[in-house]
């Protein structure tokens, strides 16, 4: 396990049980190990971003915590083993994925009636009220809805399930910017409370950067970063280097360096800001800059960093 990972310290709610608890989480597909022993806790009331390249193990991790796949090690969701208690857990866990589909042959009204019958926590009145003000009509057939409308319908369904944990796997893939904004606005307005937890994976990190309370970066089946957003600025700094000071800045051992249009940017880890300040323009890296920096770093470096 890389020691670059900071343990989560929950200063505000120290005594609360985590919503998700994973220790030594491993997954093999045949001889190939795709998750190499993940350790993490997700406390309630947080908005977590799980970020990684395609094939890094994001979806496998989500599947393990949704009980859709078995895995080695320990995983508990709301205190239960998701693979053994999947049906029970789904009363309190909701999931939206780009690939999860709604039955296309049904009308919206029929879908709601079906869910009322099969899901103990589905509140039909709530789902209907979420759809008011959207273009999704109760009599419409799902197959006739646009991609954006299906996303709205999906969101209405999961929000009408009073879930303690909502997992969103690339929820806005293929949606235009207006729908994406509306989607996240709805989540913040109508879903988030102190008892609820949101876990999101997305490639469009810029859009949700400030929504997140915590981030986890996953690379090749390992967590390379797990920290609260507000502690990022204490650990990482980005410097647009004044050309005269490039050598000086390099001496502080940047974890990443990039020259774009004649301007050199370096990312530093655990380097005193006072030392960097005189060498150029200092800021906190954006999530996407930090992601690029940490993904390009060689694993040997990651282990030696702290």
């Amino acid at each position, binding site marked *: 396990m890389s020691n670059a990972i900071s343990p989560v310290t929950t200063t*505000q709610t120290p005594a609360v049980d985590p919503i998700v608890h994973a220790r030594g989480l491993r997954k093999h597909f045949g001889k190939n190990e795709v998750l190499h022993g993940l350790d993490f806790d997700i406390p309630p009331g947080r908005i977590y971003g799980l970020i990684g390249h395609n094939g890094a193990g994001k979806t496998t991790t989500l599947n393990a915590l949704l009980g859709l796949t078995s895995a080695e090690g320990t995983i508990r969701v709301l205190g239960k083993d998701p693979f053994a208690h999947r049906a029970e857990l789904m009363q309190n866990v909701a999931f939206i994925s780009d690939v999860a589909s709604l039955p296309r042959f049904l009308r919206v009204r029929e879908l709601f009636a079906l869910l009322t019958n099969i899901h103990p926590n589905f509140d039909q009145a709530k789902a209907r009220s979420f759809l008011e003000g959207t273009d999704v009509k109760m009599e419409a057939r799902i197959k006739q809805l646009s991609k954006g409308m299906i996303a709205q319908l999906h969101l209405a369904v999961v929000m009408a399930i009073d879930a303690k944990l909502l997992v969103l796997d690339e929820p806005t893939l293929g949606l235009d910017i207006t729908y994406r*904004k509306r989607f996240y606005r709805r989540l*913040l*307005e109508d879903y*988030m409370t102190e008892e609820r937890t949101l876990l999101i994976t997305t490639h469009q990190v810029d859009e949700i950067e*400030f929504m997140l309370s915590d981030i986890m970066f996953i690379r090749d089946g390992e967590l390379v970063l797990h920290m609260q957003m507000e502690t990022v600025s204490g650990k990482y700094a980005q410097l647009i280097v004044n050309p005269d000071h490039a050598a000086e800045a390099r001496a502080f051992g940047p974890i990443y360096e990039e020259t774009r249009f004649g301007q050199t940017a370096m990312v530093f880890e655990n380097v005193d800001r006072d030392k960097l300040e005189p060498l150029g323009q200092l800021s906190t890296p954006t999530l996407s800059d930090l992601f690029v920096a940490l993904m390009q770093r060689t694993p040997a470096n990651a282990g030696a960093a702290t």
Partner: protein
Amino acid sequence: MNQWNETQPIFIQIRQRIAQMILRQDVKEGEALPSVRQISADLSVNPLTVTKAYQSLVDTGIVETRRGLGMFVQEGARPRLLAQEREKFLTEEWPRIKAQIKALELNIEDLLRQDDTQAGAKA
């Protein structure tokens, strides 16, 4: 799309925006401020960040929390806030601005006069 500057924590920037609302009297003393949820949704920021911004205004006696009702501007908040903001400007920003004016060999009186004539021209 980025409505934030990269040099200050987001909660400080939100705090400043709420402070501006109070200084401009968009929300008057004793009146209700937007809820944490509303600001969070409007700005796509984490609710905890908004709570932190409000908390810093509660700590300095500008905003009060009324249980079950939300956030309100305290009586007498505006003069207090004005004093705090002036103090902050004079200690944190003014020395840098002054140095810049000096470095560029600008004359403050000329600058102020120029600004007034421009404003006059627009009106």
